[in-house]
C-alpha cells in the first residue's frame, strides 16, 4: 500500500524528499522534511485542517483519514512514504453540497459536541462501513463465516479507536447505524 519507490531525496538536502500523492482526487506534489507525518503534511502544507492532532501518537484517532480507502492514523505515517498513494480526508467525504449521508446523520443525531474528534470519527466510520461490507469480522462478531450484522455492539467495538471526550458515543453509533441502513 505504501510505496516509497518514487520519492526522491532533494539534491543537497538529505533531510527532505519530493513526494506526489492524490488527496481528495487532486494530485499534490510536495517537498517535505522526511520526518513530516501525513497529518502534518495535510495540516501544515496543504491547509487541509480537517484531520486533527489530538495526541500525535496514534492513541486518540482524531487524525484518522482514508489511505487507499482504508482508515489509518495519519500521525503515524511519514508522508514521504506515500508516493502515488490516494488519500481521502474529511474534506473529501462529500462535496460541500450536498453533504455525505454520514455527515448529515452526524448533524441530525448531534453526534459531536466540540467537534475536534469528528473528522476522525467520520473517516473512521466511512472506512469501518466498508470493512463491514467486505465481511471483516471484529472481536465481537459471533459468526466469522457469514456476512457481518451491524449491531450496536459491532459499531461500538469497531469505533473504539476514536476517542470522544465530550461523550457523543451513543449519538455516533446511532448516526452510523442510520447511515448503514441507507446503504
Amino acid at each position: 500500500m505504501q510505496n516509497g519507490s518514487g520519492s526522491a531525496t532533494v539534491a543537497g538536502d538529505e533531510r527532505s524528499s519530493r513526494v506526489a500523492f492524490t488527496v481528495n482526487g487532486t494530485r499534490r506534489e510536495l517537498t517535505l522534511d522526511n520526518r513530516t507525518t501525513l497529518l502534518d503534511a495535510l495540516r501544515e502544507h496543504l491547509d487541509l485542517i480537517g484531520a486533527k492532532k489530538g495526541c500525535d501518537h496514534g492513541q486518540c484517532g482524531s487524525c484518522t483519514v482514508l489511505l487507499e480507502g482504508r482508515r489509518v492514523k495519519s500521525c503515524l505515517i511519514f508522508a514521504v512514504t506515500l508516493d502515488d498513494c490516494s488519500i481521502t480526508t474529511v474534506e473529501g467525504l462529500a462535496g460541500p453540497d450536498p453533504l455525505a449521508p454520514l455527515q448529515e446523520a452526524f448533524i441530525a443525531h448531534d453526534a459531536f459536541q466540540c467537534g475536534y474528534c469528528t473528522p476522525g470519527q467520520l473517516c473512521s466510520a466511512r472506512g469501518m462501513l466498508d470493512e463491514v461490507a467486505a465481511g471483516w469480522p471484529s472481536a465481537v462478531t459471533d459468526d466469522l463465516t457469514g456476512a457481518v450484522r451491524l449491531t450496536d455492539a459491532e459499531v461500538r467495538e469497531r469505533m473504539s479507536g476514536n476517542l470522544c471526550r465530550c461523550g457523543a458515543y451513543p449519538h455516533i453509533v446511532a448516526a452510523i447505524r442510520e447511515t448503514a441502513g441507507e446503504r
Partner: protein
Amino acid sequence: MSAGAVGRAHPRLEGREKVTGTARYAVEYPLDDVTYAWAVPAAAVRGRITRIDPDPALAVPGVLTVLHHGNAPRLAAGVEAELHLLQDPVVHYRGQLVALVVAESIEAAREGARHVLIEYDTEPHSTVLTADHPGLYRPEKVNPGYPTDTTEGNFDAAFEAAEVRVDVTYRTPAYHNNPMEPHATTAQWRDGQLLLHDSNQGSTAVQAALAELFEIPRESVRVISEHVGGGFGSKGYPKAAVVLAALAARQVGRPVRLALTRQQLFGPIGYRTPTIQRVRLGSDADGRIAAICHDAISQTSTLTEFAEQTAVYTRSMYAAPHRRTTHRLVRLDVPTPFWMRAPGECPGAYALESAMDELAAACGIDPIELRIRNEPTVDPDQGHPFSSRNLVACLTEGARRFGWADRDLRPGTRRDGRWLIGTGVAGSSYPARARASAATATAFPDGGYLVRINATDIGTGARTALWLVAADALGVPPERVDIRIGDSDLPPAGVAGGSMGTASWSWAVVRACQELRDRLGHHSGTLPPEGTTVAASTADEVRAQQPMARYAYGAQFAEVRVDVDTGEVRVNRMLGVFAAGRVVNPTTARSQLIGGMTMGISMALHEEGLLDERYGDWVNHDLATYHITGCADVEQIEAYWVDEEDPDLNPAGVKGLGEIGIVGTAAAIANAVRHATGVRVRDLPIRLDKLIGTSSFT
C-alpha cells in the same frame, strides 16, 4: 419571552463546519511566515536550573531560537504565578515548562526541544497526598470563596448518640481533563498589538491576563476563539500555552503556533486533585439523619493555592440538625490542580452519595427512600429558601423510567451466567450561578438582526442556544438573527464554565434584545444603513440578585454487570433525570447530560493518574495508558429532565447543565457494583483487582 424557538430541538449552528472539517481551531488559521514552538518540560521535581545550554538545539537546522528564563521577554509579576513563565530558574514540579524552542517547522522545533541541555540543583521532594502529611493546613477559604469549615449544632454528640452510624473514608485519584484539542495558540504581534487565536473557555479573561502580563492596554490584545475543542474546566483560565506563544512571537517577530503535546496536558494545565474524604453519618433506625460530617483533604502546589471545595456539596444536600464540614490542604511539589468538570461537587458527591448508600444498607431501607426522608425544606447551610428543588422528582421519575421498583435490597442476588448484576442510584446537585456579561443587539433595515457577545462555545451548543434565546427575545424567527461569539472584540462576557455560561450570557442577550425592541417601538421611519444598536450589561442586575439557594438537581441510575471470574465491571445502562430549569435546546442539552454521565463512567471505572513518587510525576501521561471511556464502554445511556419553571434565576430561566451530569455518576456506579457483588470499593477507580481479591470472588 414569547413562546417560540426556545425549548424546541435544533441542530447546532456550526454543525456543517464541524462535519466538513472547515471549522478552524486555534492553530489552524492560514498564515504567511508562520513559525512553530515546542515546549521543554523540566526533568527535575524541585530545585533550580543551574545551567541551560541551547547551542545543541540551535544547531538543529530550522531552529530559530530557544527561549528560557535567561533570555525570554519580561512579564509583569503578580498577575498569576502559574503564568509567570520563563522568568526565573526555580522548578516547582516535574514537567513545568522551562524552555521553548521556536523553529521553521514542527519537525525542527520538536527535534530542537530534545537537544536543549538543562542542569539542575535538586532538593528532596514530596508529591504524594496522605491523610497524615505533616504539611496539612487549613486554607483561608475554599474555591470559589466558600468558608473552609462549617459547623451547626453539635456533631460529635449527635453522632455518638445515633442508632446507626456510618464512618467511612473514600479516596479519589488525580484525574486529567484531556480535552481532545490540546491547549493551543497562534500568536502574532503587529505594531505593539497582540493577536491570539486561542483555545480557551473564555477569551475575555485571556485578553485581560495577557494585557497585564505584557503591560499593554487591554484594547491592544485581541483573542479569537471561534471553535474550541473541549476544555472541561482546564481552559477556564489562561494557561501556559497562550503565554508561551505570545513570548515566542515577540521574540522572533513572526507568528508562532504552539500546541502542547498530549503528554504536556498531564500537569502544566491543571488536573482534578486527588482527595481523601472521611464521611460520617448518624441516623435513627429509620434512616433520619441527625449528624453529618464531611472532612476533605486535597493537594495544591508550591506555586499557587488551589483549594478544591470538596465537602461543600454536603453542606446543602441533605437535612440533619448537627453538621460539620472541613477542608485541609497540603502544598506538594506537584503541578497546581485546577478545575475539572464539577470541581468539588463531583468528588464530594462520590463520597457523600456512596455514604448515603452505605447508610441505606445499614438501615435496611431503599436508598431512594433514604434520600426522600432526608429532604430539607430550606438550605441546611445558610437557611435560605431554595429557588426550586426537584431532587425528589428526579429520583422518583428516574425510578419509574429505570425500573427501580421491586429491587431486592440484598447484594449479590442477581446473576446471569458468569455476570453478577446490580443496580445503584445517586443524587446530584450543582450550583446555578450567573456572572455579569454584556451584549449588543442591532436591527438592520432589511429586517435582520445581529447579536454580539463574547461567549465561548466549547462544544456545549452555546452559540445555538443564545441564537434561539435572542430570536425569542426579539420576537422574530431565528432565521432573521445572526449571532456572533468567540472574539474578545465583542462585548465582554464570563467563562464557559461552572455551568453558568448560558445563564450569564442569555441574561445579557435578553436584556439587549428587549431594549432594542423598546427602542424600535419608539422609532419611526426607516433604520439607518448601519442599523440601530443597543448595548446592555447585567452587572447591576446580577449584583442585586437576592440570596437564595439556587441549584440544579439530578439523579443517576446505573445497572452494572461484574464478571465473577475476572472482576471486570461493565455498565449495562445509565439513566439520568435532571432538574435544571428551562431547557433551551433539547438537542444539545441531552448531549451535554449524556457527556457528563459518560465522563462519570470514566471516573468510576477507567481514569487514574498513577504517580511515581521517585520522579514526582504521573507515569501514565498519554491516552494509551491513561484510560478514558471509549465507544465500547457506553452501551446504553439516557438523559431526561423534569419540567421546571424557576422565576428566581435569570430571564431565560436556565440553571446550566454542563456539570450536573457527572456529579453523582461515579457514586451510582460504585453503589451498583456493591449491589452486584457485596463489595464496597471506596477508592476510585473500581479496578478489577479491587474486586477479585475479596471474599465475594473466591
